[in-house]
């Protein structure tokens, strides 16, 4: 019996073929003639069956060994990570829906129209994403309102596909609702609640490990990320990125914390809530901690695509690029990632031209926001 001494050995499984060869070698050592065993020879079934079973057991041992650490769980699958997170009493944050305030316009001949909780209105943007009316209080579009009004719409599906660029919302079409109703393209739609995707293994693990930072006398950078993003700790699930500048940015002993959601800089409401939360926490340093929204580092990105058979590719590319930028938790948005995102859109065969030629670096107090203009041929 060999022993497994190291983690590396414990997480390396012999293959079924290797086990098979080992068993045949054992048979030879016992004096058996192992030649001439056709597929239907009974003794072959014993070797094959045992090799399969032993390889399965070894594979299970590898899984269990990897599951002894949270980062090892990530090499298995999401369900193992979910179990591993329970060691930290942390649960993966689920995806949420985007909520927009959309300016609407009613044709004079169709006025007045009152929109409220029971109204059934659907908007669809160019990439196919659908939004449903979720207006709580009644809004009347009539002569007194100049036939205009701002109405809440919630993305039908969870996830960051709801975090459209305002320009896309301005061109949304009313696909169900009162006759004569349209989106007022002269006004600007506002994203009131940014959607988020379900937490990835990487971000969930980093947040869980950040909980260690809450056990010290004062919060560490990881601790800040944990408390501000974790609902169970009083944080907000919509805040997906917390950048901690602990290099004395505002003088000796100061720390600055910059917040962003999956669409860009954190909203005023998100910042206010985070500031209230932070005021009740013991902070590091003697110079005080400031909590603010990230500054948007807006990058104009002009892209031409070569597309076969997907008329929605350019609209889908805009959404994908916005999602990509919204998922950057580090300091760099790599050019390769932009190209890979575009090439992953159905029908895209090439990216002949792109206005950005270098990796995009996040400023210390900022967050990268892409403003894409995409054409397709």
């Amino acid at each position, binding site marked *: 019996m060999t022993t497994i001494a190291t983690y590396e050995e414990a997480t390396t499984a012999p293959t079924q073929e290797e086990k098979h060869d080992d068993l045949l070698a054992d048979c030879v050592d016992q004096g058996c003639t192992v*030649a*001439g065993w*056709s597929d*239907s020879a*009974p003794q072959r*079934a014993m070797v*094959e069956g045992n090799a*399969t079973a032993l390889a399965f057991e070894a594979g299970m041992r590898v899984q269990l060994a990897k599951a002894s650490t949270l980062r090892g769980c990530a090499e298995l699958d999401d369900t193992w990570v979910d179990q591993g997170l329970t060691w930290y009493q942390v649960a993966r944050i689920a995806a949420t829906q985007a909520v927009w305030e959309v300016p609407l316009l009613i044709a004079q001949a169709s006025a007045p129209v009152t929109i409220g909780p029971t109204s059934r209105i659907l908007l669809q943007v160019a990439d196919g994403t659908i939004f449903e009316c979720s207006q709580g209080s009644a809004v009347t579009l009539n002569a007194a309102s100049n036939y205009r009004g701002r109405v809440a719409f919630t993305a039908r599906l969870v996830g960051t596909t709801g975090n459209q660029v305002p320009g896309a919302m301005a061109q949304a079409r009313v696909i169900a609702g009162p006759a004569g109703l349209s989106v007022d393209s002269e006004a600007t739609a506002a994203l009131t609640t940014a959607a988020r995707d379900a937490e990835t293994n990487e971000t969930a693990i980093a947040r869980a490990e950040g909980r260690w930072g809450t056990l010290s006398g004062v919060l560490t950078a990881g601790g800040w990320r944990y408390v501000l993003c974790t609902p169970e700790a009083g944080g907000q699930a919509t805040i997906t990125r917390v950048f901690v500048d602990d290099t004395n940015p505002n003088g000796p002993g100061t720390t600055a914390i910059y917040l962003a959601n999956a669409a860009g800089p954190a909203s005023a409401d998100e910042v206010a809530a985070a500031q209230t939360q932070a005021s009740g926490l013991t902070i590091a340093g003697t110079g005080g901690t400031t909590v603010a929204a990230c500054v948007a580092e807006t990058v104009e990105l002009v892209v031409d695509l070569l597309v076969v058979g997907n008329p929605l590719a350019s609209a889908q590319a805009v959404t994908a690029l916005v999602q990509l930028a919204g998922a950057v938790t580090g300091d760099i948005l790599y050019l390769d990632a932009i190209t890979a995102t575009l090439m992953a859109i159905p029908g895209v065969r090439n990216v002949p031209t792109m206005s950005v030629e270098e990796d995009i670096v996040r400023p210390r107090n900022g967050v990268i926001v892409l403003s894409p203009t995409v054409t397709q041929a």
Partner: protein
Amino acid sequence: MTLALAQVRDLDCIATFSPLTFDEGSAEVSGAAAILRRILYRWCTPAGFLSWAEGLGLKRPILDLDASTWTPQQLRGYEAALEREAKDEDYVLTAKVRVTLAAGVLTIRATIKLVDGITYPLEVTVDQAATALRTIGAAA
């Protein structure tokens, strides 16, 4: 290394002939008797059952034929499938199978010619009561 027919030696997994049952035994069988048993094992193995030989076996293995219904065309097709399995076995030169259904009894009669030039019989019957091995490797 290729063994001569007489050198082939297998475990004998036939526990009883009537009804036909299998088990892991310690007895051994060699030569033509081993090859005929391998053919019988193939006929009793569901296709896809063996992970190392997923093409081996039958969609309707003979142990699962109780209470089955057959058209004449299906009987001919089943004969072809049985012959194909037999011929796929090493040391088999030719195989001829005849399947008949009479009075609720399905009878499978095979004649197997091995590389030693001898033709061996292999006969199995299936009825409502049981599957039985009637003849295997008796002198032709």
